[in-house]
């Protein structure tokens, strides 16, 4: 069993630590708030000779992901980190990384997209990348950010998957807050992550291959995309298996969906990221007052855990979906659209209310979560659900 050490560290510091422990061959990255301390920490590892990694400090995020793609196609284990505008600038390359089936691991410090410019947390950056073909994991805490990063490497490089994985943590709230984190010893991480054996590597010089070929003009483009869907579907089992193995090592279980109080909940909140802690805190208090409150936290957004969500919400009288991102002109935020779709096949007609909250780092106070549960209790008692989405905490 691994030796685990408890430390006090920021989310970014432990993501950098996890990346170091994965022993990547290449890291290509560009600094952006609030991801910056990840790349700074890693630069420190390089300067101290603690990694063998070739560290490429590119002139933009577009080039960072381009270099990651070149390095991964070459046969290297590759990591990077970004945030917000940087993720947006990578957008073209995100599709190419997944389309070329390259197991790159990237941390994203969730931050609002401009305009207006803002440096604080919301999920507009990552939700803009939700259809890029990446596996997307979310962390609530620094501990989860650490754990997700280590698991990401195994998931990405699994021959049944071979897809890039993004591990997302909330900007400033998780990236910069000092938290209690259990860190595994290097050797145990190395054993868990294992060696990477690339397929069709560019640097397999005796067997030259061409990467990034043209598949238009009646070529098999459609079939490539179908194969990509099959790979991300296969990743469901791989994620579960890797998490089970990791849980034995670390003592920390991982579910694509994690529930609190859902065994007998009448009212439930579905949430992603750091706000899950606030939601659990309020639910716990409400339980003391006799309200059967529950929380469903989504840790894996792609592939989306439809079945797990439907199962978790079965029997609930009213559901609130908390979105920290807009999908302008859609019926609700990105998480809402997924959750309500997941419930469509259910024989129950559970009222689902969408709350948009915390945009651009707007504070998520406990009173706000209390109003959500209050609304849900009213709906459960027979009151009509609000039509359309509700803005939570906007002035």
């Amino acid at each position: 069993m691994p030796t685990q050490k408890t430390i006090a560290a920021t989310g970014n510091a432990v993501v950098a630590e996890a990346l170091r422990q994965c022993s990547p061959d290449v890291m290509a990255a560009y600094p952006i708030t609030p991801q910056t301390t990840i790349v700074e920490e890693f630069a420190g590892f390089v300067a101290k000779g603690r990694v063998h990694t070739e560290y490429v400090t590119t002139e933009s995020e577009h080039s960072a992901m381009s270099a990651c793609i070149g390095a991964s196609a070459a046969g290297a284990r590759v990591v990077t980190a970004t945030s917000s505008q940087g993720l947006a600038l990578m957008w073209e390359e995100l599709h190419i990384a997944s389309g070329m089936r390259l197991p790159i691991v990237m941390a994203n410090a969730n931050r609002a997209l401009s305009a207006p410019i803002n440096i604080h947390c919301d999920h507009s950056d990552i939700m803009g990348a939700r259809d890029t073909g990446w596996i997307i994991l979310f962390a609530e805490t620094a501990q989860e950010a650490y754990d997700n990063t280590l698991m990401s490497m195994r998931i990405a490089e699994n021959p049944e998957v071979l897809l890039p994985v993004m591990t997302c943590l909330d900007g400033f709230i998780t990236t910069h807050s000092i938290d209690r984190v259990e860190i595994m010893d290097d050797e145990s991480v190395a054993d868990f992550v294992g060696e990477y054996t690339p397929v069709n590597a560019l640097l397999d010089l005796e067997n030259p291959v061409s990467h990034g070929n043209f598949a238009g003009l009646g070529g098999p483009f459609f079939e490539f995309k179908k194969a990509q869907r099959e790979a991300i579907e296969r990743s469901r089992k791989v994620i579960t298996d890797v998490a089970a193995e990791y849980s034995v090592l670390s003592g920390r279980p991982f579910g694509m969906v994690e529930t609190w109080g859902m065994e007998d909940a009448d009212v439930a909140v579905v949430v992603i990221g750091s706000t899950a802690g606030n939601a659990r805190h309020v639910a716990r208090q409400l339980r003391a007052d006799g309200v059967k409150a529950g929380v469903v936290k989504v840790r894996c957004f792609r592939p989306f855990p439809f079945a797990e969500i439907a199962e978790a919400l079965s029997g609930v009288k009213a559901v609130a979906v908390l979105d920290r991102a807009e999908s302008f002109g859609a019926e609700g935020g990105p998480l809402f659209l997924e959750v309500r779709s997941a419930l469509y096949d259910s024989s129950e007609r559970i009222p689902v209310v969408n709350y948009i909250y915390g945009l651009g780092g707007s504070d998520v106070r406990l009173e706000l979560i209390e109003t959500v549960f209050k609304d849900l209790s009213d709906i459960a008692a027979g009151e009509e659900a609000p039509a359309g989405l509700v803005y939570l905490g906007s002035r």
Partner: protein
Amino acid sequence: MANLKELTHREDRLEGGHRLCAGCGASIAVRQVLLGAGTEPVVVGCATGCLEVSTTIYPYSSWKTPFIHNAFENSAATVSGVEAAFKGLQRAGKIPTDKKVKFVAFGGDGGTYDIGLQSLSGAMERGHDMVYVCYDNGAYMNTGIQRSSATPKGAWATTAEVGVAQQGKTQRRKDLTQIMAAHDIPYVAQASISHWKDLTDKAAKAFAVDGPAFINVFAPCPRGWRIAFDSTVEIAKIAVQTGYWPLYEVEDGVWRQTVKVANKKPVIEFLKPQGRFKHLFKPENAELLAEIQTDVDRQWDALQRRFSCS
């Protein structure tokens, strides 16, 4: 440097049977550059463009060497990643430390002068041990002859049309070779497919240096220039003889003209055979034609001063 006989014994890494047009300057540039690379393994990267789409139609590939295409603007960044992987894997003990591999990125002028300039500048500044080769045919040929910042002034292009209000491209072209020289990298050269020995020698030097190197290769496009398919090499030669495309190199900051031109021919000898310049020969455009000659002379003289200072 290898002589012609030696070069003929080297294996072509770009196989025939690709779908580039007859008379395409790009494939000539690639073959000459890769012949100059010598016998060590070469990993090739390529920007989106004619060269890429015509050589890698799935499931085929014309490349007998490892090849990667990523996107349009990032062949330099992509190959910088491949080179970084090589170093990282060597340090990891997965590739022997004495193993030698060359890395080269190709891009057209659209993918290099315009959309890929930042990616190129970054890769060169970071000092990757790689060669970047621009095959300059002076427009976005793959998408149908749209103007780029390499398109010469006065040239017709589908986005720099000729009409009563405008006579083709109204702006001067960008001098990318000098911009790359300003990066103070070990080796920068300007070459032409018409001067094969000069080009293969420059390629050999570019691959030999420890660090980044850049070569700008003049590579005519018969389709876009409105010239006969069998006149590619001839028009490239005239570009050199008129001083429109001087052949030189900048080695560790020392500027040297590699092909001397004793008496520059008038630039109209380069312009006249090309359909893309035909409007310039109308009497009302005489002034524009004279301006083009003045520009060539001025740029030529400025370059001569660089050579004499070195």
